């Protein structure tokens, strides 16, 4: 298909375009006015809101940093009390990591990716809007706790037992657990969106080897979130359950182990650093070629480096635990792995240097490129100190000191904040068609660069001369005074830089549009002329830098000569292409603005926060309302094939509805199952880990466990549940007809799983297992909880599908909703069966 176009050198659509085509696009994609603006779902609106919120949290957490620096400016200072200081550093770290860094990168994904892929929107617009609202509400409440002394004070890493009720009474720690658990869920929602968006909504012809590096880095980023975040979600579940109900996951006397938390936390926490760094590196890989006006040297090496970083980063979490007394062999392994991860970073640094050197007519020095160069310096230092702490003996001295404070700020500020400011200056004209001020930008850069290094460079020494992390005061005799004073001065210089940026930002948005497009003469698609509907038509791409290699592309695209220059279904839509080659497959009918997802976010947040302050009944009411809103939102999806097929140009007639493995919903569901799988993997790790730590609380042989016929019965129920769902799909009626057997089978399917979980729990209780008695027993019940929550989702989904059947929205053709429900059912049954095997088999096996 694509070949024929190239041979004819003809464009997919011809001119002139019919009258009113563009007006219809404008009407369909219009952003709602006034207060209805909050119902908007388009990626440009939602992405900007997301980025704005993340930046606001950056400023707030930065102000907390200034308070801390002021307190530490001189020895024995009493500006801030011990208790408040402990809250402030906890909130600073938590906010920067969870409310700023990850959301900012997701926001850039939401904002930039569809533009770079010339898609009209991401495939699940309401999902990203839901994630944003959930994050803004949850994040604001979490942050505000610092103003009324309710903020957590266990550090952003929240190590138990300090964070157990015995040492942290009150709701402070719960705010961290529930607030963060909730924000993680919104991060996962964003990650699913980003993966499906990158793999399925690329423009025709943009095969994976032409994907902009930012797309690659976001793909790895989102993949890492899918694997890493479930571990910390499980950890937060454990900790909250132990705090609320006393199940001893982390209490040594009950067979638990505080180090289990550290393993789970750092299995997430170390990849987290790369989750933050990789997208930023991707941004740099976009800016450098533009400023050099030459393609990136080593594109393929960089892609390999990004993927390698993703893999390596999961093999080095233990380097945060070198001082915990773990065996020498583990030390050696994790030390080597920690060093290996330096190689992919080296590849990227040298690729940028090579590309800068290849600049045609000299590398342009402006605000974005200054920030990139600043990043290169700071990140190099951060990487080198990272290698130092990977050396076990050195880490024994440096660990938990201000050396680490310096190191992590070099990595994160160099690896993420500087690229982010480069991004602000580079992509601002894409968003507002107006450039930020170069003059202020240079001031900002130098203030930030100097301020940052004055704060943190010598802080490496402050740590090595003995100043630990997380201390609110220090004695005059320690001799750390002058070091700290200089750091405080630097922090204020850095703060002044950020203030200048805020001024520049206000200047920018105060004035109307200026009509600047592609001011840097960049080569990628986000610099095509756009309006609310994104590009007028979706370009056919034949190179990595289409705007450089395909002359006249911008004009052709705006004239509507490429794909889908109109809205054939009369609503929001974009083209879905195949994952590797990007050949057009179907046109996706996307939902428009709406209230349901906003309310769902509000009620989800309310539910979590009410649970935090232990107001259970209203929390449950909110949970019910949240689920109802989600169902109302999902009800309008799965639109069926009524409006297709439609022509998109080049003689292509595409369906507007597909089911099965080609559908984007199916892809999202599969990724969600991967998330659930990662969560369960973390559970299996925890189960086996606790067994290695406290085998004495594991029953030998079969004592304490129900006789084998009971789990066999549960297993039978689970298997029949899957069978019911499978058969239900086969009984789907022809369009327009109804078939009572289908809802009956679905109901039976859901109910047998419910029954199986209930039976499991009942058996454990009958044999005298009590979750509060030991870590073993807690883990047994935990397995049922993990299965139970999936079964609950399955039940809701089954009822939802049944309702669709009775309203005539489910039949043999329009079956996407049922297919996704079946995926969930199969996964649930598989996990439950593995669970039964482990819970009943493992103790019998180890005898």
């Amino acid at each position, binding site marked *: 298909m694509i070949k024929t176009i190239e041979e004819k050198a003809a464009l997919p659509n011809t001119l002139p375009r019919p009258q009113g085509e563009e007006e219809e696009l404008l009407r369909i994609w219009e952003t709602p006015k006034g207060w209805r603006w909050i119902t908007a779902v388009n990626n440009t609106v939602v992405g900007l809101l997301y980025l704005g919120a993340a930046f606001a949290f950056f400023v707030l957490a930065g102000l907390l940093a200034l308070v801390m620096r002021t307190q530490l400016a001189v020895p024995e200072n009493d500006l801030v009390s011990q208790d408040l200081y402990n809250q402030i550093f906890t909130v600073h770290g938590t906010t920067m990591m969870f409310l700023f860094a990850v959301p900012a990168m997701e926001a850039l994904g939401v904002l930039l990716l569809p533009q770079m892929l010339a898609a009209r929107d991401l495939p699940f617009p309401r999902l990203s809007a839901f994630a944003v609202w959930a994050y803004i509400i949850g994040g604001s409440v979490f942050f505000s706790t610092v103003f009324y002394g309710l903020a957590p004070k266990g550090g952003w890493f929240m190590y138990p037992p300090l964070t157990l009720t015995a040492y942290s009474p009150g709701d402070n720690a719960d705010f961290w657990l529930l607030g963060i658990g909730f924000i993680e869920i919104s991060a996962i929602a964003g990650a699913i969106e980003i993966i499906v968006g990158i793999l399925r909504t690329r423009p025709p012809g943009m095969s994976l080897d032409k994907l902009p590096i930012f797309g690659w880095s976001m793909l790895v980023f989102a993949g890492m979130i899918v694997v890493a975040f479930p571990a910390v979600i499980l950890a937060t579940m454990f900790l909250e359950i132990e705090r609320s109900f006393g199940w001893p996951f982390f209490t040594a006397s009950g067979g638990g182990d505080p180090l289990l938390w550290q393993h789970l936390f750092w299995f997430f926490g170390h990849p987290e650093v790369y989750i933050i760094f990789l997208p930023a590196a991707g941004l740099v890989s976009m800016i450098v070629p533009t400023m050099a006006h030459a393609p990136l040297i080593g594109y393929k090496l960089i892609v390999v480096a990004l993927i390698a970083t993703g893999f390596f980063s999961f093999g080095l979490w233990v380097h945060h635990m070198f001082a915990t007394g773990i065996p020498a062999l583990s030390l050696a392994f994790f030390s080597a792995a920690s060093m290996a991860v330096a190689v992919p970073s080296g590849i990227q640094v040298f690729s940028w240097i090579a590309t800068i*050197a290849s600049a045609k007519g000299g590398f342009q020095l402006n605000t974005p490129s200054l920030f990139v160069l600043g990043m290169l310096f700071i990140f190099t230092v951060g990487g080198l100190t990272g290698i130092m702490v990977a050396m076990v003996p050195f880490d024994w001295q440096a660990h938990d000191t201000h050396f680490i404070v310096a190191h992590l700020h070099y990595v994160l500020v160099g690896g993420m904040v500087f690229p982010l400011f480069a991004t602000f200056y580079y992509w601002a004209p894409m968003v507002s068609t107006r450039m930020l001020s170069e003059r202020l930008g240079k001031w900002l850069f130098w203030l930030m660069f100097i301020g940052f290094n004055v704060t943190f460079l010598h802080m490496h020494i402050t740590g090595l001369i*003995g100043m630990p992390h997380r201390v609110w005061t220090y004695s005059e005799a320690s001799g750390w005074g002058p070091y700290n004073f200089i750091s405080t001065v630097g922090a204020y210089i850095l703060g002044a830089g950020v203030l200048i940026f805020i001024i520049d930002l206000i200047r920018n948005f105060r004035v109307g549009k200026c009509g600047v497009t592609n001011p840097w003469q960049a080569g990628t698609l986000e610099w095509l002329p756009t309006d609310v509907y994104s590009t007028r038509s979706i370009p056919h791409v034949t190179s990595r830098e289409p705007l450089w290699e395909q002359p006249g592309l911008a004009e052709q695209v705006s004239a509507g000569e490429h794909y889908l220059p109109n809205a054939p279904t009369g609503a929001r839509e974009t083209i879905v292409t195949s994952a590797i080659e990007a050949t057009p497959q179907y046109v996706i009918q996307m939902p428009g603005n709406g209230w349901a997802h906003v309310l769902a976010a509000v009620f989800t947040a309310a539910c979590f926060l009410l649970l935090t302050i232990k107001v259970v009944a209203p929390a449950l009411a909110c949970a019910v309302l949240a689920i109802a809103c989600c169902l109302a939102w999902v009800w309008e999806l799965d639109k069926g094939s009524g409006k297709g097929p439609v022509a998109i140009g080049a003689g292509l007639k595409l369906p507007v509805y597909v089911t099965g493995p080609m559908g984007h919903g199916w892809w999202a569901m599969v990724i969600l199952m991967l998330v659930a799988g990662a969560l369960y993997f973390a559970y299996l790790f925890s189960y086996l880990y606790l067994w290695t730590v406290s085998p004495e609380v594991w029953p030998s042989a079969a004592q304490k466990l129900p006789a084998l016929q009971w789990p066999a019965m549960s297993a039978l129920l689970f298997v029949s549940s899957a069978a019911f769902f499978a058969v239900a799909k086969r009984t789907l009626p022809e369009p327009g007809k109804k078939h009572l057997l289908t809802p009956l089978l679905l109901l039976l399917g859901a109910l047998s799983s419910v029954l199986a979980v209930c039976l499991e729990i009942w058996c454990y209780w009958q044999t005298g297992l009590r979750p509060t008695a030991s870590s073993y027993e807690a883990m047994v019940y935990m397995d049922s909880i993990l299965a139970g929550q999936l079964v609950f989702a399955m039940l809701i989904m089954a009822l939802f599908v049944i309702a669709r059947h009775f309203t005539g929205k489910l039949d043999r053709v329009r079956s996407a909703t049922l297919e996704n429900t079946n995926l969930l059912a199969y996964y649930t049954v598989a996990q439950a069966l593995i669970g039964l095997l482990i819970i009943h088999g493992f103790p019998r096996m180890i005898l």
Partner: protein
Amino acid sequence: MKIVSHRFSILFLVMALLAMAGCAGEQSAFAGLGPVSSRITLLIWIMFTGAALITAFICVLMAISIAGPANWRHKLAREKVIVLGGIVFPVVTLTTLLFYGFLILKAGGKLIRAEDPVHIAVVGEQWWWRVIYRHDDGHTTESANELHIPVGRPIEIELSTADVIHSFWIPAYAGKVDMIPGRINTLHFMADKSGIVHGQCAEYCGGAHALMSFYAVAMAPFDYEAWLAKERADAKPALENKGEQLFLSSGCGGCHTVRGTRANGKIGPDLTHVGSRLSLGAGILPNAPEHFAQWISRHQKIKPDNLMPPFDFFSENELQALAAYLDGLE
């Protein structure tokens, strides 16, 4: 470091040690006052030098890539540069460094297998240190917030915790090791010469984490034996009877032990020889009678959240008597 004490023997010893160590209260990883830490100090300098050179090299490359002569820039703009600089160079240098690191670990292993180490147990408590000396005859002597060790002998410290995770760190002698509930970790090190150094809790342990430190005193073996024998003995009968009576009648003995008296509480630090220690409140105040009085009357101000109940009801005279009594427990 000002050490105010009016007891000669201790004062004498302290002064002598101060003179020898040069910089008493040292809390720096650069000090390298023992074989374990000095190996790390060397490693620090090697890595600092290497890192500085590499950073400078990258900066030079950046400068050349932007403003260098065209033919230099042309040479830089090749994929080969990425392979050499980004793969070959780090693999070679990092492998070398890694093996050097293993050598250091291996050298540290010798001390672990050393015979006849000094056995001391330290228990981390919110926010102080319980120190237990294990004698060769199987008995133990409990003390607190100060560690005495002999010079030139391998030291083996058993580390555990009574509550949350703490981390035991004497930078001048060795890296830190965590104290984790349900586990006993061991730390091995040796002091090269006599002197007083400072240590601190490195793992955030809640509330007064910043105020949880201690002194470590390295002594010549003979002095150490003498000190240990004295530490092992019960408190001498008090010269200051009024203070002792107050101490006992106010319930101090419910938490603190003063061996040789009725006070046998196990919750707080052992005070049998508190007068001979360098500091009060776990490395917070220099040991002096007026600081005893300050600590008793306003310890929540000096060390917020510490778990000692408030004792703000003593009159000035009573405080003086108590302080004199405690200061006399040498």
